[in-house]
């Protein structure tokens, strides 16, 4: 163990940072997109209109029954076929993550919406607010407030999952670490370092979730 060389990390820091930026950017955009699409899916499922809720339920069940890596492949290979031109690894991965996460987010959001008392909806109706106004101003703000911890938790999982983008040749943090590890022949240092960075970011996220939960019950 006396030939551990930390300098390999420092020397490649800009390269690794680039990778980390891609991971964070992909996570951030996928969380936002997933929540927006997930909200629509949840509202569709709760709409009470059979064809609409069936479409949403079918989508959610389909996506949740396939591995994420398969969804990433689908969009990498199928979207260019449909569009007739390649859209690049980043966009295909982003679309895959949004579509995939939306299915999970929609289930979280659906539970969040159902946690809002029915009386709140009636109060909105009694004032003459429309269905969409009630969702927008009364139900969703309360639902999201109840859901923030679990939405963040899902975001942490998503951050870890972004390491799968190596399959479409994107250079995220994990891939960047691997490249350095192999080219410099420093496997031990780099994989320990990568684990350390993932741990710090995810653990910070978990602490934040715990604080949110505490402040909610207080």
């Amino acid at each position: 163990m006396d030939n551990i060389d930390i300098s390999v990390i420092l020397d490649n820091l800009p390269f690794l940072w680039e990778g980390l930026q891609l991971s964070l950017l992909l996570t951030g955009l996928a969380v936002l997109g997933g929540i927006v699409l997930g909200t629509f899916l949840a509202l569709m499922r709760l709409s009470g209109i059979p064809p609409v809720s069936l479409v949403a339920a079918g989508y959610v069940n389909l996506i949740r029954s396939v591995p994420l890596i398969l969804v990433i492949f689908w969009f990498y290979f199928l979207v260019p076929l449909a569009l007739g031109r390649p859209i690049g690894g980043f966009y295909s991965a982003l679309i895959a993550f949004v579509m995939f996460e939306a299915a999970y987010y929609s289930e979280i959001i659906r539970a969040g919406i159902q946690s809002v008392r029915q009386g709140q909806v009636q109060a909105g109706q009694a004032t003459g607010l429309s269905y969409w106004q009630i969702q927008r101003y009364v139900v969703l703000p309360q639902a999201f407030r109840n859901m923030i911890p679990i939405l963040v938790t899902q975001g942490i999982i998503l951050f870890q999952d972004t390491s799968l983008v190596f399959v479409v040749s994107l250079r995220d943090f994990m891939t960047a670490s691997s490249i350095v590890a192999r080219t410099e022949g420093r496997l031990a240092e780099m994989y320990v370092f990568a684990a350390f960075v993932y741990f710090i970011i995810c653990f910070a996220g978990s602490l934040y979730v715990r604080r949110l939960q505490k402040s909610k019950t207080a």
Partner: protein
Amino acid sequence: MISIENISKWYGEFQVLSDCTSNVEKGEVVVVCGPSGSGKSTLIKCVNGLEPVQQGTIIVEGIEVTAKGTNLTKLRSRIGMVFQHFELYPHMSVRENLCLGQRKVLGRSHDEANEKAETLIDRVGLLAHIDKFPGELSGGQQQRVAISRALAMDPIAMLFDEPTSALDPEMINEVLDVMVELAQEGMTMMVVTHEMGFARKVADRVVFMDEGAIVEDRDTEAFFGNPESDRAKEFLSKILNH
């Protein structure tokens, strides 16, 4: 103004309302009472279409609530409703609670809505609390805010669904006082309540319900002085002897 004709309603097999008929004239105050589970709350929620009915018609100001294709949102904006559990929006301040409907439904300007909110909240003595959140107020204060929120829409009639049932006893009067004042100003009101003192004081008529049916629908004096049905007599003796 509100006319309820032969309405019936079922939850699955269970009939909650059977053949109810009554009406409320403009400026009239009608108290609906009866044992719990008698369908009072369901009846009042049918008036603004929060609960659908399977049979019969309800007409409010010439608009048939029970007809298919009726613009319920528009009708509801003109009928105020106060709930047993207040149902203030917990994520909004008192001010925002009063302004939401005015802005989004009536299309009032920010200043206009705000001014109205302040006037109404001042009337129920809570101006100092206007920027607080519902969770920071007592039950009685919350219910007074809820009444103001309904009044902010300039309703032609007000529906009250057991407005004091969820309150601690010492807070009941502060809410009833607001309602008495409203009644004396000539507001058309339909009130589901167990507060017989309130009924005696301001109600023009009392509707007594039992097991989903309207058993008595009479002038207040006649109802309290000389109830016709045994069930009403029994109900009154139970509720008034305490």
